[in-house]
């Protein structure tokens, strides 16, 4: 999923200060799962903002809406009837959702309420960690199911570097060394020999190397 963390309240208060009526948007997808911008978080943020402004004697009118998917024009269209009254939009979706709302409603200021972080997985309740860098040319099939690009601090394709110690990365003692994980898994699979195949210099074009990316599925796009 795409993970996100809510921005500090003080920053959000400054974003909406000029406005009297705002639309506060949640998204029912990834940001709900990572507890950053679902219906529940929308409610909590609305109360916090109202409280923050009521201290200054200001009444902030907040309309709360949580869309099924904010990165999808079909769902974003549902906002059209509510947009007229709103002076600004505060979106708790990931950056994709924020941009979709901005694209559809050209004349409304849209502010992000979360910082979009990474594509990751849930380690356990309340802990998410990065798993995929979206390089566009997946190597997991040869690296034992652990991504060196997303999970090695130096994105080494032929690690581990000299800073791997006790299974941890030199950058942070709490961080697993991706290449230790890769090695452990290759061993478990009986594929130790594969380690010695040098991975060639990566072609970054399928990733961000060739500019912003687009997928066109002719069969569906017709």
């Amino acid at each position: 999923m795409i993970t996100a963390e809510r921005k500090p309240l003080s920053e959000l208060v400054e974003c909406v200060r000029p406005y009297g009526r705002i639309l506060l948007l949640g998204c029912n997808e990834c940001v709900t799962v990572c507890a950053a911008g679902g219906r529940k978080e929308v409610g909590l943020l609305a109360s916090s903002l109202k409280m923050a402004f009521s201290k200054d004697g200001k009444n902030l009118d907040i309309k709360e809406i949580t869309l099924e998917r904010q990165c999808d024009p079909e769902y974003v269209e549902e906002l059209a009837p509510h947009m007229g009254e709103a002076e600004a939009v505060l979106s708790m979706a990931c950056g994709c959702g924020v941009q979709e709302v901005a694209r559809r409603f050209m004349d409304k200021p849209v502010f992000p309420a979360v910082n979009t972080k990474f594509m990751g997985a849930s380690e356990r309740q309340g802990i998410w960690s990065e798993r995929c860098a979206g390089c566009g040319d997946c190597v997991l099939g040869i690296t034992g199911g652990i991504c060196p690009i997303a999970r090695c601090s130096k994105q080494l394709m032929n690690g581990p570097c000299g800073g791997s110690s006790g299974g941890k990365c030199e950058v942070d003692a709490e961080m697993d060394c991706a290449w230790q994980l890769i090695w452990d898994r290759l061993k478990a699979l009986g594929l130790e020999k594969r380690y010695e195949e040098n991975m060639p210099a990566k072609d970054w074009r399928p990733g961000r190397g060739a500019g912003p990316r687009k997928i066109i599925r002719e069969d569906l796009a017709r």
Partner: protein
Amino acid sequence: MKTESVLEKVLASGQMAVTSECGPPRGSVPDKIIEKANLLKGYVDAINVTDNQTAMVRMSSWSSCIFIKQMGLNPILQMVTRDRNRLAMQSDILGAYAHGINTMLCLSGDHPKFGDHPMAAGVYDLDSIQLVRMVKDMRDEGKFQGGADIVNPPKMFIGAAANPFADPFELRVARLAKKVKAGVDFIQTQCIYNVDKFEKWMEGVRERGLHKQVYILAGITPMKSVGMAKYMKNKVPGMDVPDEVVKRMSSVPKEKQAEEGIKIALETIERLKGVEGVNGFHIMAIEWEEKVPEMVERAGLLPRPQV
């Protein structure tokens, strides 16, 4: 002979090679690099010039190399993949070679987190093994990494680092094998304090015949004090300083610790001279370059061969 590198000639002659290093200054101060290199003149075969070591901005390695080259000495251009992409690295290699620099060391480099620009993006377009391969293809195939032909390809004698003390230990020989496969000519190792472990690594190297395919220079760093020994043991990632070494450093009074550090280093050199596959020494006296001549002399590594 693959190159004009003096280091290659010394190693090919079968004599023990000696290298040392100079860290460029934190400013446009050529005198500093000239002063440091002058200390080493006549005592080493080649001088590594570090590339923003510990991720701190310093005068560039290649420009410092030119000053050293102009003194008639042999610089080793260090290059880390942290700060440049493959275009920048290849153009620097062409430029360095055009100035007569013919030996280099390929590294991934310390992570930006450890330096004075922790907010900087680490580039890592290539890793050190891919860099070795790129430099080899530039030299032997006369091709850029992108595939086009090079006019007057740079003939670099290609080095890389190896840390026998990092984890997992069982991978350390295999990782050297990958560097050999990529085309590395010589290796300079991490500083050796745990000599037993280093010898165990060398055993693995010999078992696979890697010592016949690559020259290995053992890394030696004298310790100035017990404080430095403790710091290296506890704070420097990938460093293996056994308790006995710390104990030995602390067993002598403060004013004699520097000499004790030198003695330990000299004993290590003496012991490693007898290890098959060790072809020389890389003496890194960190901010203590003035000690290198004395160490080389006391280690019986003088005079340096004329090749």
